[in-house]
């Protein structure tokens, strides 16, 4: 514990020191790289929240990728059909809830193996979106909103307060989730269900209902991440558009020890590595083939897991069916 803590703090300190040094060298580029890290890190963080919300109540969700893919597609499709970004966002969130309910249905009501259920969501989302996809659509996207006063703070203004609306919304969701998980009845009950469903059941908490609720809510968060991807970050949609972010999110969740703040920090670190790589490519400091750049998050994910796995303790009831009646 302490070893890990110190490792975490040393890393944070080094990152701050390097950022400070680079900022003194070139303020404009450093600021923009860190701001980009937030933009890249946010969808991963939101996707990791999907995993956290599900697994904290004991449902393994490897269908996050499918949720992202499906909701980003639906969001984009609706936004382009209605020419209304807000409709797009709402439909994306609804689509996310639909995938969540589908997972809940398969894994809770049908008691299917949860990993197979997640795989079905992924394959179904891939099939459905590639089938419905047509090229050349345009959709309205969101625009950055500068928060008055805060946005004029040097460095932090651009890093935190000059983003599109979904970035702010996403960050609010993440912080609320953190507070809710550790300080409300819902959070206490959810964690109890994920660790020892019987304890919640015998205390009059419906395991079935809470799991359904959380997996559906998680789907909504995934829908938000999808909307962010297609309507704010990229502004278009293409087949296989989410590029494994849903899986990376699972690794971030594990690395963050199923804690929203931990996963957020891990996601931002991931975002930073991507932002730095982009900057290096852009400024021609290093020429790295595109394929290797694309590979980076996956390699990092494995490295991150190889470091953290075995030292973490997942929710104890994860992946298990809760049988209320046993002889």
């Amino acid at each position, binding site marked *: 514990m302490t070893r890990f803590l110190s490792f975490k703090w040393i890393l944070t300190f080094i990152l701050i020191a390097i950022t400070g040094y680079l900022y003194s060298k070139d303020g404009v580029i450093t600021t923009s790289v860190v701001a980009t890290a937030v933009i890249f890190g946010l969808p991963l963080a939101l996707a990791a929240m999907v995993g956290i919300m599900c697994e904290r109540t004991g449902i393994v969700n490897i269908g996050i990728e499918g949720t992202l893919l499906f909701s980003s597609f639906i969001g984009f499709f609706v936004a382009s059909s209605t020419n209304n970004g807000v409709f797009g966002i709402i439909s994306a969130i609804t689509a996310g809830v639909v995938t969540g309910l589908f997972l809940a249905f398969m894994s809770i009501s049908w008691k299917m193996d949860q990993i197979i259920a997640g795989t079905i969501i992924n394959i179904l989302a891939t099939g459905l979106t590639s089938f419905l996809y047509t090229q050349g659509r345009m959709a309205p996207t969101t625009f950055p909103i500068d928060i008055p006063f805060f946005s004029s703070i040097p460095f932090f203004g651009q890093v935190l307060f000059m983003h599109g609306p979904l970035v702010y919304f996403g960050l609010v969701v993440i912080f609320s989730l953190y507070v809710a998980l550790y*300080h*409300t*009845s819902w959070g*206490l*009950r959810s*964690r*109890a269900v994920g*660790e*020892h469903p*019987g*304890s*919640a*059941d*015998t*205390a*009059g*908490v*419906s395991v079935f209902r809470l799991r359904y609720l959380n997996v559906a809510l998680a789907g909504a968060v995934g829908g938000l991440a999808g909307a962010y991807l297609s309507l704010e970050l990229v502004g278009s949609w293409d087949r296989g558009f989410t590029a494994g972010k849903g899986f990376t999110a699972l690794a971030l969740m594990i690395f963050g020890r199923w804690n929203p703040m931990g996963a957020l920090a891990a996601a931002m670190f991931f975002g930073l590595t991507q932002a730095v790589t982009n900057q290096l490519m852009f400024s021609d400091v290093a020429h790295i083939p595109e394929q290797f750049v694309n590979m980076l998050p996956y390699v990092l994910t494995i490295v991150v897991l190889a470091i953290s796995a075995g030292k973490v*303790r997942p929710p*104890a009831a994860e992946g298990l069916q809760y049988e*209320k*009646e046993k*002889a």
Partner: protein
Amino acid sequence: MSALLEIANVTKTFPGVVANENISITVAAGEIVALLGENGAGKSTLVKSVFGMVRPDSGEIRIKGEIITPGDTSGAIARGVGMVHQHFQLVPVMTVTENIILGSEPKRGIFINMKAARAEVLALSEKYGLEVDPDAFVEDLPVGTQQRIEILKALRKDVDLLILDEPTAVLTPQETDELLQVMRNLAASGVGVLFITHKLREVMAVADRVVVLRNGRVAGSTSPKETDEEGLAQLMVGRNVVLQVEKGDAKPAAATLVIRELHVNDDRKHLAVNGLNLEVRAGEIVGVAGVEGNGQRELVEAICGMRPRISGEILVAGEATPDMHPHKIHSMGVSHIPEDREKHGLVTTYSIEDNLVLNQFDRAPFAKGWIRNMAALEENATRLVKEFDIRTPSISTTAGALSGGNKQKVVVARELSQDTRVVVAAQPTRGVDVGSIEFIHNQLIAARDAGAAVLLVSAELDEILSLADRVAVMFGGKIVAILEAKEAERVLVGRLMAGLSA
């Protein structure tokens, strides 16, 4: 006066088993009713129906005259039912306070009011004289304390009916007496208590009325005034029982299993076996008596190579056994009847045939090189099913389809049919029907008479006292006393188990 709890004609079946058949029981306010029965008699299922954890197939359950909705736990709680569960329903990684308030948390706005919750726990703890640390994490607490938390959880709402499902299984005799006193006090204050046990002594000590279940049915109803332990036992099993196992005198030879200065950690990395020394001679049964959680499980697992040893050595016939190599240790002649047969002893989706060779599938005659010898497998299974009286439709039936007693017979058959020098039996009759218990006991005695050194670990003191030639009392990770069978008196052993000096 209408009864506090009325169970009327409740029937519940699980696939292949009738757990409860047409059961009717009443409990009045201020009354202690003991529900007595063997493992598998249907006691737990019945009280779970009352608490809304199981939906009965038919019948009615009324609390204070009101019919409760089947399967509605929160409804049962709202009507003043509290339950202490046999398997603790506590979240190990949460604090005592969090566990107790779970399900109805004191709030301030939308947040949990932890301060109020903590104060409530302290007040509750004081009120019932059950001491707990509200900020401790449950996983760090000994089982006795966890039991107290369970009871506080149940008593938190003003309960009218308290159900206790085998609450004494993990307690020392002294802790048990304290719990029985708590029950008496509650009853005196007007609470109805429904108390499940299979220990006759406790029933005689505390119950106003006794209802005996057998094979899912009410076998009789009586009171401690009208009967004695012998009579209760007879009701439980439906025939005259010999509480004493018949066996000849042991003829012990040289020490076959020798344990020296053994140190072993438990799952939480706390020292559970702390410098243990023990010898078991060929041709004798040594029973390890102790309250659960005093290192017995870790001892057994260390002997069988399933848990890393920190230091010390374990010799079988003079030869040191390797650490963490269950299979090698097994091939040195150590048979093991594991505590958790579904986890370690059996592959429930395999046939009986395969399960009977699970740890020797790659040896002759069951394999010739790389190829398995199906004929030998079949011959082996056919013979053992007959010899060990395994009740099964066929040898290709999966082990999971068998009853608890027959599953255990499969394990016993496999372990005792091989050439064995040491038998380590951990809770060999837990969850096993009476007939099978007798059979398994006789097999252990037969193994002893054939010259094996038998180490029997059991939470059932009666089992130890009736089988063992010597009784080793384990407390705090050490053997604190070794008694010859004839000097092992229940009271004396109980004191030793509690860590008191003789």
